[in-house]
């Protein structure tokens, strides 16, 4: 057994090489990951993700819109514009896919294109039939996704086809796309429940042969659709649920390079984000997500989660403007009328709000104790406290100092806010209150008990 001796240091070790605070905590790897495939050990180098062109693709207006009331055209145009600023000039958010079926769909695409934004590139989404393909041509898109269901659940029980009929139909539409100069992106629906060697790999190899003589920008793309959220990121898990094995076989046995592979997940088993991030690490470049994870049933990979993961993996912002996420959630709430759960990571009203007095005390003394990263600088969201009978005088002091905008030595001590804390406690102990104290009530208390400070710092 190895013996560890206490190192009684004079200065704290805050492990800032991993927790820089100016960025989300960084993800560092210390070796290769091993996976057993066909009885042999294969290796994945997770550090490859640092140099590979991983990026995010968006389906907020396609899958994300299937699970909620439709967005208005102006909503989509505004969100598209914000998405462009969020992903930044390097195109971390590389593409966004749109429906093409209604007049409103097509007018929205025209309005988004009129903004002349380089990223995200607008792509389409169609079913695999030639009638739908006409819409892509009419809109002048360079790439379209097409539904190519890959499990027998879909082929036999939804489409009433044989595997041969399904494959022939899919390939026919992909060929039509290529003839029109449009890059096909085949969405292999339900792939984590499919017969991989019996259908998926033969189909992908046939698609690959179809574009083997095409220039790079026209080679077929493959979207791996974990339609029911069955995918698993664990090492050595059995196929077809294994994400590592699936990506390895597509790259090494079917010849699909990382830049032509995309992961599209669903959250039915609470695995949506980690599966997407794992897919990046196991060797594909594009992670498909939606704003705030809106999507069929339990949703898709949350785009903002992918953005934070990207920063953590790359170790830099890479042109990302993370504060746009805060603008987006405000837009959802104020204009679209959609409210997120208050504890939703990065954007929920209370994501960096503490309630316990002991936490508020820590936060007041040294913000980093209870704040995940510099949310003020990166998200324009200072850490907050929610005031109840459990918040303590530390919580009141934190709230008041934030409210008055006091910094450094200006900040009020707990003795200065003791009267407000007494009022709060009386609310619960004497009035029998059951709800949190509102910001408006606390503002009134500041006016009453700290009138000089209110006059100086909040009056105007």
């Amino acid at each position, binding site marked *: 057994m190895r013996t560890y001796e206490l190192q009684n240091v004079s200065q704290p070790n805050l492990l800032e090489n991993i927790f820089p605070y100016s960025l989300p905590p960084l993800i560092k790897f210390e070796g290769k990951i091993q996976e057993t495939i066909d009885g042999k050990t294969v290796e994945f180098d997770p550090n490859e993700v640092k140099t590979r062109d991983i990026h995010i693709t968006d389906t907020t207006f396609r899958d994300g819109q299937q699970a909620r009331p439709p967005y208005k055209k102006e909503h989509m145009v505004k969100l598209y514009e914000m998405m462009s600023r969020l992903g930044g000039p390097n195109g971390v958010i590389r593409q966004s896919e749109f429906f093409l079926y209604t007049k409103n769909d097509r007018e929205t695409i025209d309005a988004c294109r009129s903004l002349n934004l380089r990223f995200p590139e607008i792509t389409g989404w169609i079913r695999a039939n030639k009638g739908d393909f006409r819409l892509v041509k009419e809109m002048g898109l360079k790439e379209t996704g097409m539904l190519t269901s890959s499990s027998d659940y879909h082929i036999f029980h939804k489409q009433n086809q044989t595997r041969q009929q399904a494959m022939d139909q899919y390939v026919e539409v992909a060929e039509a796309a290529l003839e029109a100069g449009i890059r096909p992106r085949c969405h292999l629906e339900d792939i984590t429940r499919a017969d991989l060697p019996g259908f998926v790999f033969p189909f992908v190899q046939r698609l690959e042969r179809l574009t083997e003589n095409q220039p790079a920008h026209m080679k077929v793309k493959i979207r791996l659709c974990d339609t029911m959220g069955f995918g698993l990121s664990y090492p050595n898990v059995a196929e077809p649920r294994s994400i590592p094995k699936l990506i390895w076989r597509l790259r090494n046995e079917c010849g699909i390079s990382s830049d032509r592979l995309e992961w599209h997940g669903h959250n039915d088993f609470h695995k949506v984000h980690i599966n997407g991030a794992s897919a990046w690490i196991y060797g594909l470049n594009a992670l498909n997500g939606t704003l705030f994870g809106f999507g069929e049933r339990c949703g898709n990979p949350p785009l903002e989660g992918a953005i934070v993961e990207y920063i953590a993996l790359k170790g830099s912002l890479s042109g990302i403007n993370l504060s746009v996420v805060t603008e987006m959630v405000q837009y959802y709430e104020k204009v679209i009328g959609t409210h997120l759960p208050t504890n939703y990571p990065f954007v929920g009203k209370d994501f960096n709000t503490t309630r316990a007095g002991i936490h508020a005390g820590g936060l007041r003394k040294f913000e980093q104790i209870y704040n995940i990263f510099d949310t003020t600088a990166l998200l324009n969201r200072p850490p907050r406290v929610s005031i109840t009978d459990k918040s303590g005088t530390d919580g009141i002091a934190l709230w008041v100092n934030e409210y008055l905008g006091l910094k450094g030595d200006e900040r009020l*001590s707990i003795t200065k806010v003791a*009267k407000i804390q*007494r009022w709060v406690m009386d609310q619960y102990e004497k009035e029998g209150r059951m709800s949190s104290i509102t910001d408006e009530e606390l503002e009134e208390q500041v006016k009453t008990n700290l009138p000089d400070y209110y006059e100086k710092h909040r009056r105007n």
Partner: protein
Amino acid sequence: MTRREIAEHIVKITARELNMNAAEIKETDNFAMELGADSLKSIELVAAFEEEFGVSVIEEEALKVQSVGGAIDFFDKLLNKH
């Protein structure tokens, strides 16, 4: 202000804040154990002492004070710069 005068103020404020008779308060009394001051009441006492003497104290140091005599010594030291 002499230590005796400071003591009179401390006892008066303590009696008012804790709703007690000043004659019952002794210098050896511990604010929490003998006089029943909880954490908020201790903060309120410090705030009241600050107001009474017209000073601001370092809260961590002030809240370390346990007894009435300790509070008298604390403010005697602060006000008379011993």
